[in-house]
């Protein structure tokens, strides 16, 4: 069963296009998706997934299970960066440890979308409110990451930890909360996702005719644009693999094992909450995935002492391909073993 799930995933169009991108880099093809086309795809995917999630949320309503699930999701996005930080701190300076930890506490929307497509092909249903969980898991990890970095360096300031030749500039004693909160909650991609979610909710509630008119745009194009975006992700992830040598075995190991461990915790919570099979997979994927869009942008601004190539390479070069290629089918196999189908 497990191997057939892996195979089914490997032979799906989005994953094959991801491999095509990787292959292009390996063979040194000059295939390129020039800027800002990847941004177009990314904006589209966020808008579409947010809008659809909002519409489905309006249909399902904000019941007890919904609120509990969202609460559990936020809790995970607070806990994961804390535990990850202490683990990473054994080998990394506080800035880099905090930045990597924040990535793993946050989520990857594209991994989530790929898991949804996987469920669609298997014809396993899932609920729209999971998108709300996705949207609300982005920001807390950013705040935790910055706070950890600050706590770990206060007192030990001027510690010589200045990485990459950057001087650490302690400014007017402490955290710039305004900047931090803006990066955490008003980052363009988080803002668009949450905004589209709310718009989808409002339109579905107050003018349902509008939902139908959006549908060809948000539904029909989705799979194709996902393929295009994954082609680009393949190109970028493969380029990032070269940076990994600098990251070292410890970080690579973390990038593979952390998703597995976080997914298992997610599985336990899903069972406790009584989620159906589809939602359980999505919850596991939220826990297991690491951010490479919102968090890196936020970390560069709020923890400029950390080295971007470390946190981008681990999340985008290792964890993303791992989740998308083998993680999702493995998690699904675990779901089928541990979550009763009858609940679905």
């Amino acid at each position, binding site marked *: 069963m497990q191997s057939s799930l892996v195979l089914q995933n490997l032979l799906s169009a989005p994953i094959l296009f991801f491999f095509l991108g990787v292959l292009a880099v390996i063979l040194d093809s000059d295939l390129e998706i020039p800027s*800002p086309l990847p941004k177009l795809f990314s904006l589209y995917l966020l808008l579409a997934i947010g809008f659809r999630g909002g519409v489905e949320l309006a249909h399902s309503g904000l019941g007890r299970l919904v609120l509990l699930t969202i609460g559990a999701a936020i809790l995970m996005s607070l806990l994961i960066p804390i535990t990850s930080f202490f683990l990473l701190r054994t080998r990394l300076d506080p800035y880099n440890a905090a930045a990597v930890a924040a990535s793993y506490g946050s989520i990857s929307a594209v991994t989530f979308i790929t898991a949804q497509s996987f469920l669609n092909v298997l014809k396993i249903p899932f609920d729209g409110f999971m998108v709300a969980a996705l949207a609300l898991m982005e920001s807390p990890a950013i705040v935790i990451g910055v706070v950890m970095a600050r706590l770990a360096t206060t007192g030990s300031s001027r510690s010589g930890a200045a990485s990459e030749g*950057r001087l650490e500039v302690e400014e007017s004693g402490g955290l710039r909360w305004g900047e931090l909160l803006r990066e955490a909650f008003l980052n363009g991609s988080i803002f668009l996702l949450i905004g589209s979610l709310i718009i989808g909710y409002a339109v579905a509630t107050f003018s349902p005719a509008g939902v139908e008119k959006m549908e060809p745009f948000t539904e029909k194009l989705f799979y194709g644009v996902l393929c295009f975006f994954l082609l680009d992700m393949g190109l970028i992830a493969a380029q990032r693999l070269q940076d990994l040598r600098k990251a070292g075995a410890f970080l690579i190991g973390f990038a593979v094992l952390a998703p597995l461990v976080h997914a298992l915790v997610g599985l336990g919570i899903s069972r406790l909450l009584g989620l159906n099979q589809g939602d359980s997979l999505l919850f596991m994927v939220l826990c297991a995935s690491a951010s490479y869009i919102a968090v890196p*942008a936020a970390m560069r601004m709020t923890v400029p002492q950390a080295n971007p190539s470390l946190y981008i390479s681990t999340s985008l070069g290792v964890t993303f391909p791992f989740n998308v290629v083998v993680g999702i089918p493995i998690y699904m196999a675990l779901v089928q073993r541990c979550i009763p189908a009858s609940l679905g």
Partner: protein
Amino acid sequence: MKRIDLFLNEREVEKVCKAMLKAGAPGYSVMRHVTGMGVGGEISEAMDFSSFGANAHVIVFCEASLLQALREAVKPVLRRYGGVGFVSDAETF
């Protein structure tokens, strides 16, 4: 006259340009989507889909007397986020 060339991340451009205007710069020009290599490693456009940002090239032509004020306006940002600056001689065309 002097010509100042700054290379820094796109996301700090607005901050830097405002600071320079306040310090008396008569104008500036900005080119975004600049890639490059410096002590902070390689900067490419590959992460452009996030708001991580590539570099920008900022050019200011100004009187030599303004140099010191502009330097003070720009330095804190370059020191915190990275980026380099160079000066050369120029004249009005």
